[in-house]
């Protein structure tokens, strides 16, 4: 029963976002601010994770592919497809659920308990629209970009690890990257990125916006939002894979 109540409130929050902005310029400013916060703010961690993810992926694939019948360039092909299909969209979004999700829930939770949201309401501002919508739109804009950057960096990381350890040459790795490439995989990765971006921005916004109490509750809401976002990302990952692959 509690699940349905929470889900209903979540849908009401989403519905409440759609209203005419009081001042389009201010909403645009907030949207750009959020793009910078979510996008630029997460770039460092995304880059580090992606490079190491690609490098580890290359080394572990090489370790498992010991057959002389399989060409070495296949290692690069597997790294490419693993990074595009799974690692970049899913792993990066799970990390972002922690980084971005806790930030959104914490920010809105703090605004709620310190009555800043009430202050905006009294000014005549639709707070669902002004506070949640720009975060959601910004996440949907920049997270797919981060996923693309992550995929590129993942492949660069794999290439560096493979060539530095002497598993295969740069020419062999580049050949592997090009062979049997399916553009549909990129479409699949993007479909996942957009879905996950929506989840990891709207769920923390819901928990943060509805905080009641004090600092302890903000922490709880932040943790809960990250846990729920991660579970939903994994669930959506399975559903999308089952439907689209």
């Amino acid at each position, binding site marked *: 029963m509690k699940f349905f109540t929470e889900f209903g409130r979540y849908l009401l929050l989403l519905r409440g976002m759609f209203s005419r902005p009081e001042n389009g310029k201010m909403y645009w400013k907030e949207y750009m601010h959020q793009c910078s916060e979510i996008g630029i703010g997460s770039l460092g961690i995304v880059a580090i994770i992606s490079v190491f993810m690609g490098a580890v992926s290359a080394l572990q694939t090489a370790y498992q592919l010991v057959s002389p019948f399989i060409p070495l360039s296949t290692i690069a092909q597997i790294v490419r497809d693993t990074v595009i299909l799974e690692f970049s969209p899913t792993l990066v979004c799970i990390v972002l659920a922690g980084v971005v999700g806790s930030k959104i829930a914490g920010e809105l939770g703090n605004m709620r308990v310190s009555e*800043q949201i*009430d202050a905006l309401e009294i000014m*005549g501002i639709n707070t669902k629209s002004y506070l949640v919508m720009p975060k959601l739109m910004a996440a949907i804009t920049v997270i797919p970009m981060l996923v693309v950057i992550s995929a590129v960096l993942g492949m660069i990381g794999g290439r560096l690890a493979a060539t530095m350890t002497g598993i295969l040459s740069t020419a062999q790795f580049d050949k592997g990257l090009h062979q049997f490439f399916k553009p549909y995989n990129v479409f699949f990765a993007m479909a996942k990125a957009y879905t996950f971006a929506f989840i990891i921005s709207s769920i923390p916004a819901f928990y943060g916006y509805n905080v009641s109490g004090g600092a302890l509750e903000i922490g709880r809401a932040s943790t809960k939002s990250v846990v729920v976002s991660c579970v939903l990302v994994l669930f959506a990952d399975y559903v999308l894979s089952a439907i689209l692959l």
Partner: protein
Amino acid sequence: MIEILNIKKGFGGKTVINDVTATFKTGKCNLIIGTSGSGKTVLMKCLVGLFEPDSGEIIYDGKNFSEMNEDHRKELRQSIGMLFQGSALFDSMTVEQNVMFPLDMFAKGTPAEKMKRVNEVLDRVNLQGANKKFPAEISGGMKKRVGIARAIVLNPKYLFCDEPNSGLDPQTSLLIDKLIKEITLEYNITTIVNTHDMNSVMEIGDHIMYMYQGIKEWEGSNKEIIFSKNKLLNDFIFASEFLRDAKDMRMLEVKGKIDNNRNMDELLK
């Protein structure tokens, strides 16, 4: 003028506001007083629309707030300023940006005109030179003054102050009270103040409503409150022995039994 008619509000089966009717006049400091949990804040939140009353009507200068749709409420809210108990300043913005925010959102005009208005209201609340400071860098009293500046920047018709003196020393509280009073007269607005600060009651209480367990228990002015025979009100107002003695002396003074020129220190001896 704001009128409230038979307002009722409850949470989870517990009645918090029970059939309260009152009129808050323009150009006056209207105080709602009462112990913690008496329903003052809930009543104020009903008045500004943060809570929806279970029944009753709220009328702003003849316009029924309870019957307004969301668009009309948004329009009306632009003529409402509110000072919150914790000031509710936006942490990520400077003092100047906090005060500028309602102007940027709703007012027309050039950035220079808006900045001029910001500086005007900051001057009005004696906060010259604090423009670039963040809320974390200023004192509690200054935060309240920034809150007042933000509340009046759009020339509101109604000003709500929720516990404006909480957490402030008596001297700063007095300054905030005087500021609220001056602004009320200067802008000729309807001001409603939630408080349990007795200095405020005596200093600025043009019209006082005492609430007890969600019910309006007493109504009058700061001139009348001292002579009230209402036991609940007297227990609340004159809670300490010092205040009870002060009241007795005031009564004697009024009755002419004490020389008006003698000061309080002498009387207490």
